[in-house]
């Protein structure tokens, strides 16, 4: 009986498991990483902790994008990472899933802007810009950024872009280059 359709373009169970396994690894990395986050987050500097570390939480989306090169890969990748995090590790509860979706959309918009043709430097640059803006708008409501001083907001925005730019842009680009060199994914 034929049970595998190799011509199918949508999501295969292998893709889902692949992203979910990566998401669980990310969950473990987040756990270690969150100690640093919590140390700063318990002080008035919490917004800085948010924005400084945001790039790491967001990485799973663009990484899924450049690895699978599919429409929707960033959203699904980030949503899976968020679902894994919520089910296994999280202390953010319900907001985990919603934020994951929003972050994924931000990244996805960047890749969509290139017509899903560029998964290299340009695509990643646009994806980091997209997620910086979208997540900032989201935090305007969810984390109450609307109530902060303008000066603080400006510095937060810049810190956020640097964090997302490094982790979800440069680091993902380096990973992609390593993967390409190894010839693992065709």
């Amino acid at each position, binding site marked *: 009986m034929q*049970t*595998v*359709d190799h011509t199918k373009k949508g*999501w*295969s*169970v*292998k*893709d*889902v*498991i*692949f992203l*979910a*396994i*990566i*998401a*669980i*690894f990310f969950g*473990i*990395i987040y756990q*270690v*990483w969150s100690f640093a986050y*919590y140390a*700063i*987050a*318990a002080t*008035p*500097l*919490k*917004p800085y902790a948010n924005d400084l570390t945001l790039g*790491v939480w967001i990485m799973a989306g663009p990484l899924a994008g450049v*690895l699978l090169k599919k429409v929707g890969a960033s959203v699904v990748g980030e949503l*899976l990472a968020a*679902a894994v995090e*919520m*089910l*296994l590790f*999280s*202390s*953010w*509860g*319900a*907001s*985990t*899933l*919603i934020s994951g979706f929003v972050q994924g959309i931000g990244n996805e918009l960047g890749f969509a802007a290139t017509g899903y043709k560029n998964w290299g430097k340009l695509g990643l640059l646009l994806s980091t810009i997209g997620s910086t803006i979208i997540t900032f708008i*989201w935090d305007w*409501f*969810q*984390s*109450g950024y609307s*109530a*902060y*001083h303008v000066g603080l907001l400006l510095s937060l925005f810049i810190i956020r872009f640097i964090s997302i730019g*490094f982790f979800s842009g440069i*680091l993902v680009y380096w990973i992609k*280059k*390593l*993967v390409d060199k*190894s010839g*693992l994914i065709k």
Partner: protein
Amino acid sequence: MNRKRINPAVLVIIMLGIGLQITFAHSVFTNIGVIIITCLYLSYCKTSSKLLILTSLYAFPLALGSWWSFIAFGTGDVWHIAWIYASRVYAYLYLGAIVTLTVPIKDILLSLALHLNLSSTFVYGLLASFNLLGRIKSQYKTIRYSAMMRGTTYHFWNPNLYLRIIIVALNWSQDLAEAMTSQGFTEGAQRTLTYKDNLPKWQWGLAALLILLYFIFSFLVRPW
């Protein structure tokens, strides 16, 4: 043990329906309302109180940080704002907990597949991966130890760490997917259900009612 519970699919809808609104609401009282109702349900479900206290403590730095940052950097009515965002942390936390702490992961995913048409590819793919949790944890240690034996430490900003992770994920997902298809799993095919999952209609009504009530209180009544 066999007390009547709300179906996981309905819980997810309540969680998202109210969770999304919390983001835009500006009221300490409705946050506290959410906290009280969700905690009542959690105690009705006999959720381990030790686990609840632990997660509550774990979220405390977040709530404290939010609260304090508005006192320090906020504009306008900082005390009100500070309490809104501090209580919001806990409203989110317990709203998530009514899903994740009262129902096993497997039941959540199967219920989502059955009642909300989540594709079986995702449901069974996720289930398969969650079963690897223990192995993934030990694999993560193995990756780091083997790097140490070669004299390098993999920090989380080192791309080589992620390359290892991707290699493992590629191999395992290939193996698992093949194992599943060889056991007869067909993507998108009609499935025989071997489990029962009741969802009485009134539970959808309950979800709609709770979401609507939250909307009315948060955006029309708008208590402090």
